[in-house]
């Protein structure tokens, strides 16, 4: 089973507008895919529709050949940072522990083993000393690392992340990408909604160019070129090359 995710004819709407139209693609196991597109392209909605958090109007999605409900334990979702209640009284360790709630089950308390797993995940993200810190006292980058740790602790087979690198400092960005590559080496599949075109080539081996529908999808080196990018951004983007480097400008 080499196909981790298969999306067929996916369409999704918000109020009266169609935000995703006839999206179709297959993701290889063990790939690290970046989902890019202009604002309003439907990138977040795509992930939410795939995970049925935002019910699609139409479409079929399968994970490793199975429907969503059979594989929930093998999926990990890192939502955008903005969707959380920062006022909530909880510390970093607690947040990571929440990743295990699915496994702990109803009415049971987390055990020592679970705490150890959570601490390990924090350590992988370099956040051990912040374990008992209130989350609203952490910086943006630190918060993101905690959410990554929460994803790691789930030990999933496929990871969906919505703009994990948005608004984080350089050290955190490096740490996160290291972690994602680590996951890739372990054979996990990772899909990341990404906001920065400049870094796509460095970070992802596969790319999905999205603007309401799939503009292009495949190996970065094959499909991530000016033509496709300009098509995705609707002609509002021009790419110039300075030597070997791409310099992007928006109109």
């Amino acid at each position, binding site marked *: 089973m080499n196909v981790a995710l298969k999306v067929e004819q996916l369409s999704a709407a918000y109020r009266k507008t169609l935000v995703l139209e006839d999206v179709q693609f297959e993701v290889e196991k063990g790939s690290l895919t970046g989902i890019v597109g202009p604002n309003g392209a439907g990138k977040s909605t795509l992930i939410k529709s795939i*995970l049925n*958090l935002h019910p699609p109007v139409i479409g079929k999605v399968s994970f490793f050949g199975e429907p969503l409900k059979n594989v*929930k*334990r093998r*999926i*990990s*979702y*890192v*939502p955008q940072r903005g*969707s*959380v*209640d920062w*006022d*909530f*009284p*909880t*510390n970093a360790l*607690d*947040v990571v522990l*929440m*990743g295990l*709630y*699915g496994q*702990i089950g*109803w*009415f049971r*308390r*987390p055990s020592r083993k679970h705490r150890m797993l959570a601490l390990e995940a924090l350590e992988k993200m370099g956040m051990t000393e912040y374990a008992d810190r*209130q989350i609203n006292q952490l910086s943006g980058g630190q918060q993101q690392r905690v959410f990554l740790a*929460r994803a790691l602790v*789930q030990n999933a087979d496929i990871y969906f992340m919505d703009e994990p690198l948005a608004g984080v400092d350089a050290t955190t960005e490096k740490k996160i990408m290291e972690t994602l590559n680590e996951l890739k080496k372990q054979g996990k599949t990772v899909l990341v909604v990404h906001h920065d075109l400049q870094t796509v080539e460095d970070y992802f081996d596969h790319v999905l160019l999205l603007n309401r529908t799939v503009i292009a999808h495949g190996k970065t080196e094959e499909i991530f070129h000016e033509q496709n990018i300009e098509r995705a951004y609707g002609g509002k983007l021009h790419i110039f090359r300075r030597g070997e480097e791409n310099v992007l400008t928006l109109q």
Partner: protein
Amino acid sequence: MEANCIFFEGVRKMSLLFSSNLQWVMFSTMILGIAAGAIGCLSYFRRQNLLSDALAHAALPGVVVAFLLIGEKNMLVLIAGAAGSALVGAFFIQWITTSSRIKEDTAMGMILSIFYGAGIMLLTVANRTAGGNQSGLDTFIFGQAASMVRHDVITMAVLALVVIAIVTLAYKEWKIFLFDPEFANGIGLSIKGMNILYTLLLVTTIVIGIQAVGVILMAAMMIIPAVSSRYWTQNFGRMLILSSLFGGLSGVFGTLISALGKGWPTGPFVILVSACFFLFSLFFGKEKGLLVVYWKRKGQWKKLRTASPDVTPLMTKGVK
């Protein structure tokens, strides 16, 4: 004639109170306070503090309808009527908010007043048809803990215990549901299910409470202890415990104080006691209490001063 009746009523109640009846009343308001304090914590993080006020008012038509159908004041039936009506209200608020541009506060205000208005319409009709029996209805609506009979207290206590049990048992589910519902959904927790459960618990608490402290004051029980507990801890579990504690204590002391006077209603005194707890927490609370923050800041200011004496006072102003 009216005044005399009221006077004797008051005296009669007084003599009742200093019997075991007072203990029963205190017990019921205590347990109500605990349940309200617990649910209040959930409402606080759902940012739905005033929903309990809206739903408490929305319960009125249900009470009257239930009464009209049964013809007598049967506690369990009236509670069921209140709950049904409140749930319908909750449903409408949801429906209006999600399917139109009307915002949640507007929807709450509408349901609150329209349902209550409908309730008053029905109550006026009930007062005419039922005669003397409806005096029981009034206490249900405005709250008179002192006039509850033992049987009623037991019903209330059982329901309150159920509410407390569910909050405690599903503790971590509540935690994640309140903190990060999208992620919770991702790992398989049904957000819809939690929403329904939360609404049921909320309505149950409201409904059993309105006959102790009244429709209008029920909201207070669900807001004030929860907010007070915020000033003592940054841990959700401890918040729940503290909030319940504040709620329970307010119930006990409020009832005691109200027993001192002739025909004094219990509700307002319970609220007053909890407001005192709140003010105390606001100023002296370990976590964010005003005086504590002030002292801490003074300490920092001293440190800053000794470190570099040139630092001007202006630099510490506006620091949160």
